[in-house]
């Protein structure tokens, strides 16, 4: 029996690896191993105040810190009977878009693109692709700036708090952000053009299921109280356990998820496949130009989906800024109307649907359950890795080529390993 091991998988966030065990031309086992240390975050928030919970759970991940914060806030506020005012709602949309710009551009330009162009990292790309690297960095910088301004600092800013924000942005800052969004649109369109030009092999293609938040109002969006599934179903977020069915796998410190016993995909590609028809403006044009049925069978198109989301995010920002300005007189923070209750908050993190479920008793967290995007994609990643390796063994590919292909497939999911290792209580039946 031969083994091909990729460990650690570089240019992903957190410690993970891929193990492939083969016997002759047969694949014995393929595993996407989550090697990150365990933190037991859900056990640490018990007994803490809702505000403390938000400060702790956002630390699960630095890249999706604001998505965690947003999901936690949605879950906690439902439990506490808080309805936030429109100004707070739109400020949260703005911070969320900032994170999408930061995370998607980081992944597309700095983490994924070097694979396709044959470089070990983005800095090495500077010689021949300086213009594009600079464009990618400009987009990321803008995303970071929005995160810093809305949350208080670039990573783990505490400004978005239970009931609203500690402080809101002034009119001038908001208008500057709006202007900058328009200026960066060509850079985002360039991202789409570059990624659309990459050659994506088809030999590992296979159908799967896609899941994302249903934003409502026939809009493309990133939050919702229902989940839209590509099999046609729409399910309230409160039923998330029946959608995700978390279970333990010994090679992974993150739990795996299955829907109806089958792997499923979350993330930009799931959003595009489920909601792409709702896009408007430039993102709509680009979606129509580039989307095809292979997107339903090939996870590597996630890179292109992320690039189109960059364009969409920039197009959203002027609308969001206008909405914040319309509600300038709203209160900064709304207080809880009760001290106990339960709530499920779901948002789209850049890499997929993120659930935070809380039970509050006497004003403190009594129970927490978090389900993370990368955990949901693990089975799907392994499914495609297995198909790819089987095909490549038939074609007598060498270890190096197999390793490279596996890395491209795994990395295209934009896995977030710190996120996926925070764990959830095992339910024994």
């Amino acid at each position, binding site marked *: 029996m031969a083994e091909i091991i990729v460990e650690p998988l570089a240019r992903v966030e957190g*410690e993970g690896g891929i193990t492939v065990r083969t016997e002759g031309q047969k694949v014995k086992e393929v595993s996407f191993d989550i090697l990150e240390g365990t933190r037991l975050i859900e056990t640490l928030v018990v007994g803490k105040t809702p505000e403390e919970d938000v400060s702790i759970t956002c*630390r699960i991940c630095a890249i999706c810190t604001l998505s965690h914060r947003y999901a936690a806030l949605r879950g906690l506020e439902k439990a506490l009977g808080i309805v936030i005012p429109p100004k707070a709602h739109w400020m949260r949309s703005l911070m969320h878009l900032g994170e999408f710009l930061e995370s998607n551009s980081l992944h597309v330009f700095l983490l994924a693109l070097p694979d396709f162009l044959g470089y070990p990292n983005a800095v090495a790309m500077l010689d021949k692709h300086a213009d594009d690297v600079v464009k990618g960095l400009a987009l990321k910088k803008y995303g970071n700036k929005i995160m810093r301004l809305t949350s208080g*600092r670039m990573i783990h800013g505490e400004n978005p708090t239970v009931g609203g924000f500690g402080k809101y942005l002034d009119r001038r800052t908001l208008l500057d952000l709006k202007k900058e969004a328009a200026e960066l649109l060509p850079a985002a369109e360039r991202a789409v053009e570059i990624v659309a030009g990459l050659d994506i092999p088809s030999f590992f293609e296979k159908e799967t299921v896609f899941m994302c938040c249903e934003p409502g109002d026939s809009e493309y969006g990133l939050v919702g109280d229902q989940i839209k599934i590509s099999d046609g179903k729409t399910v309230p977020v409160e039923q998330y356990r029946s959608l995700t069915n978390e279970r333990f796998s010994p090679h992974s*410190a993150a739990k795996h998820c299955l829907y109806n016993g089958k792997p499923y995909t979350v993330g930009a590609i799931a959003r595009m496949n489920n909601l792409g028809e709702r896009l408007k403006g430039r993102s709509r044009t680009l979606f129509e130009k580039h989307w095809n049925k292979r997107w339903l069978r090939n996870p590597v198109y996630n890179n292109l989906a992320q690039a189109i989301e960059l364009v969409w995010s920039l197009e959203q920002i002027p609308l969001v800024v206008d909405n914040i300005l319309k509600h300038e007189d709203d209160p900064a923070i709304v207080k809880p109307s009760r001290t106990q209750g339960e709530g499920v908050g779901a948002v789209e993190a850049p890499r997929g649907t993120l659930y935070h479920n809380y039970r509050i008793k006497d004003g403190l967290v009594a129970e927490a359950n978090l389900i993370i995007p990368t955990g949901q994609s693990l089975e799907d990643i392994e499914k495609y890795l297995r198909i790819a390796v089987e095909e490549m063994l038939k074609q007598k590919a060498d270890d190096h080529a197999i390793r490279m292909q596996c890395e491209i497939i795994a990395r295209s999911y934009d896995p977030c390993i710190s996120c996926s290792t925070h764990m959830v209580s095992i339910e024994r039946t």
Partner: protein
Amino acid sequence: MEKKKLDVGLYGFTGCNGDQLVIIHSEDRLLDFFGSANIKSFSLAKSDNDDSELDIAFVEGSVSNQEQAERVKEIRERSKFLVAIGNCACYGGVQAMEMGQDTWDHRFEKVYGESFLENRTPVESKPIDLAVKVDFYLPGCPIDADQFFRCFGHFLRGEQPAMPDYPVCAECRWKENECLLLKGVLCVGPLTASGCGAVCPSHNLPCVGCWGVVKEGNVTSEFDLLKEKGFSVEAIKNRMRMHTGIGIMKPLKNILGVY
């Protein structure tokens, strides 16, 4: 004569990767950083990493399994200086907030049940200096880019890095913020190392303590003050422990008798 470039490695253990990300997010300076030293290892940013001898190892994250304890020892052996960056490396981070309370076994079982992990042997998260000698500490959750590059600049010039040793309250006063403690808000600014620019109080929100306990922070006085303001012992303990890991263990034990 041109000076030999420093050989530098960046490593991430258990945490959110936020400290390495702060460095990646520093765009313009990132290119200078890659140009001013030989970056031998930086797994979050590049794939051609090697395990060679280093002048400086920057280590992020807590040690949360036995394999990481071995790995950090191996990094220590081939590095002249080892710098712990971020709260997880310096103090254990949020995942170490219950250190010393013997709750870990129970909590681990709650999450994983009877199951075991094939590839790793988990332990309760702890700071790097419980596994190896640490030369310098750069706290923060996450670290501040300016502080990191200032520290790195010191190394480039062959100097020893120095960190501020005053609390968040000092920065808060420079910003002329109203004191939240005086308004009866549970703020741990007086105990917390500065470097963030008093960012939370500047947003009308209390300091959560995410840079760890400042040297000579008067825990007893803050504890008494908060009790006087009407906060329960439990609420004060929770808030003080949240981000400080091992940093608050001893002083709290002195106040409460037990931890």
